[in-house]
């Protein structure tokens, strides 16, 4: 049985839930969002990822209604939302600080939005209980926010923002305040809840792992622009720029000049060293400056010269970053170029084959690296 892949962004017939059309936001002289147009589809889990100050929070606050675009329009289900105040939008937000009302119990916090809609009392109780169950907080309804743990508070905030069944849920760094282990668990919980409720989620985060884990699509932002918006796999494997390649995960970036040769390109990156082979869909001029981005896990490290590899270079181990399950080797080539290679620590540490100052061979295929204009 084949499963249909959820990818409305590839379907020209699909109608987006949210459309940014040439949206610009300025604060005085500062351009927070620079003429951006993009679509978010219903039931997507869309992540806005970037360093602080890149405009991701501004983007979210415009969706919530706390900021209005200086230029351009934002459409929600085809309707311009600029004139709609935050309290009238079918959009709810989960705040970074959770913003739970300290004077109200967990139950009353979740009921807060429902009461504002003048929902009948029994309906409110039903809905709140449903939310408590969804977030596994049944036992904590009567507690005040300061009487529960950080993880529970996070779930109350989520339950409260989901209670009104919004068309769109905004999550501002929702897991930032949790410790690493709880964060991982909660990521899966979030995905689970997103799937159960079928709500469209837009998450703002600076944690690339978090974005990659939860999101159906990730938009990498920098200086008020979306540099690339694509599935986590495409962002990682096919970054469209040095910025994206560098921002997501570990990477070695080699500067060089490209020469067309056969199916791919030869990248010359230094005097007197053989050029590197790279296949690429990007069309480059002969002699054009380029960057070759290679993920360390795609580089094999061996003691002996590898047989039949597209690219093989020799170098000396300068640094080893031991991560437990993996080790990243920083290998320096004779011309000074550093290349990172990663290998799984399948053996115990004492029997590890490479150590500092060892001369090793690095090899990778022509398709392993991504050739970027540069």
């Amino acid at each position: 049985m084949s499963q249909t892949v959820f990818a409305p962004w590839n379907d020209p017939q699909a109608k987006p839930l949210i459309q940014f059309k040439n949206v610009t936001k300025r604060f005085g002289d500062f351009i927070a969002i620079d003429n951006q147009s993009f679509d978010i589809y219903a039931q997507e889990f869309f992540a806005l990822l970037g360093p602080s100050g890149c405009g991701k929070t501004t983007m979210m606050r415009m969706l919530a209604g706390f900021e209005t675009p200086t230029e351009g329009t934002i459409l929600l289900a085809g309707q311009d939302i600029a004139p709609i105040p935050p309290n009238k939008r079918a959009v709810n937000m989960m705040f970074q600080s959770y913003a739970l009302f300290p004077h109200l119990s967990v139950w009353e916090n979740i009921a807060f939005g429902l009461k504002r809609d003048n929902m009948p009392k029994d309906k409110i109780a039903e809905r709140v209980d449903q939310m408590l169950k969804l977030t596994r907080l049944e036992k904590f309804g009567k507690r005040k926010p300061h009487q529960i743990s950080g993880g529970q508070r996070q779930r109350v905030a989520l339950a409260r923002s989901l209670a009104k069944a919004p068309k769109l849920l905004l999550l501002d760094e929702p897991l930032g305040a949790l410790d690493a282990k709880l964060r991982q668990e909660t990521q899966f919980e979030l995905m689970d809840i997103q799937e159960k409720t079928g709500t469209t989620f837009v998450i703002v985060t600076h944690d690339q792992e978090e974005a990659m884990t939860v999101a159906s699509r990730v938009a990498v932002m920098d200086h008020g622009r979306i540099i690339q918006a694509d599935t986590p796999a495409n962002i990682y494997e096919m970054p469209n720029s040095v910025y994206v390649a560098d921002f997501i995960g570990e990477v070695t970036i080699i500067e060089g000049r490209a020469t067309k040769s056969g199916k791919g390109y030869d990248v010359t990156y230094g005097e007197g060293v053989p050029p590197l082979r790279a296949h690429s869909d990007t069309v480059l001029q002969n002699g054009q400056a380029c960057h070759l981005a290679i993920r360390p896990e795609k580089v094999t490290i061996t003691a002996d010269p590898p047989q039949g590899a597209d690219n093989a270079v020799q170098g000396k181990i300068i640094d080893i970053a031991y991560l437990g399950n993996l080790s990243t080797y920083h290998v320096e080539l004779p011309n000074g170029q550093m290349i990172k290679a990663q290998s799984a620590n399948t053996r115990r540490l004492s029997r590890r084959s490479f150590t500092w100052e060892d001369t090793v061979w690095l090899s990778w295929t022509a398709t392993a690296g991504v050739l970027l204009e540069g």
Partner: protein
Amino acid sequence: MRRFTLIVVPYFWLLALFLVPFLIVLKISLSDTAVAIPPYTPTLDLSQGWAGFKDFLSGLDFENFTFLTTDDLYWKAYLSSVKIATIATILTLIVAYPIAYGMASAPDHWRPTLMMLVILPFWTSFLIRVYSWVGILSNEGYLNQFLLGIGVISEPLTILNTNTAVYIGIVYTYLPFMILPIYSALERMDGSLLEAAEDLGCSRASAFWLVTIPLSKNGIIAGCFLVFIPTIGEFVIPSLLGGSQTLMIGKVLWEEFFNNRDWPVASAVAVILLLILIIPIVLFQRNEQKQREAEG
């Protein structure tokens, strides 16, 4: 031992500066007036030994307290003080809340200046500040001149020597005591709470009632007690700004002491006033305690 020393110092302070004077006042309230220095009997004469002490004890009685119940001036003055203090506290709250709210929502770099402006009047003598209100509120005062000048009124308003003047005086004097606790409650409030309320469907106004007010509740309660408690016994403001019909227990107390030279009755009035004040003071302490627990 270190702990003991730490505890002893404040307790000694309380003992020396509160309990001992209070016991002296209590003793005077149980004595009788006399044309003597000091103007009451009995006085403790330790040269007679144990017999002298027994004599001294037998001279004490509750006559003055019974006297307070026979003349309706006293309970009327107590009641009127409570009424004036209550109304003045509410008025102070109404004036102080917007000021505190404005201070808390002002940009960060403005706040120390605003705080300074609230505290600044304390640097001048309280008496002089109250006297200056006489100059403002009297029939020929600045306020009447100004209102006549711009033509709002044709006859000068009689404000001085009325309860209105007393309220103005109390609100003016005790305003900082109300502003500061409310400001500190509002300042601590997380701004995202209001955004969350709006996000969940509140208008600005309902977010204020449902979030801002409940969260500043402890500040409001603290401020109200800080104004109410000293206002009940207030003497300077009603005697300078109030008229003959302004009845406050502080004024009665003063008259008993200095006009009638009846120290025992005056002391009895003071003891009863203290008993009345204990109720709000205990409530105030409990509020503070609860707040500490909630934050703890």
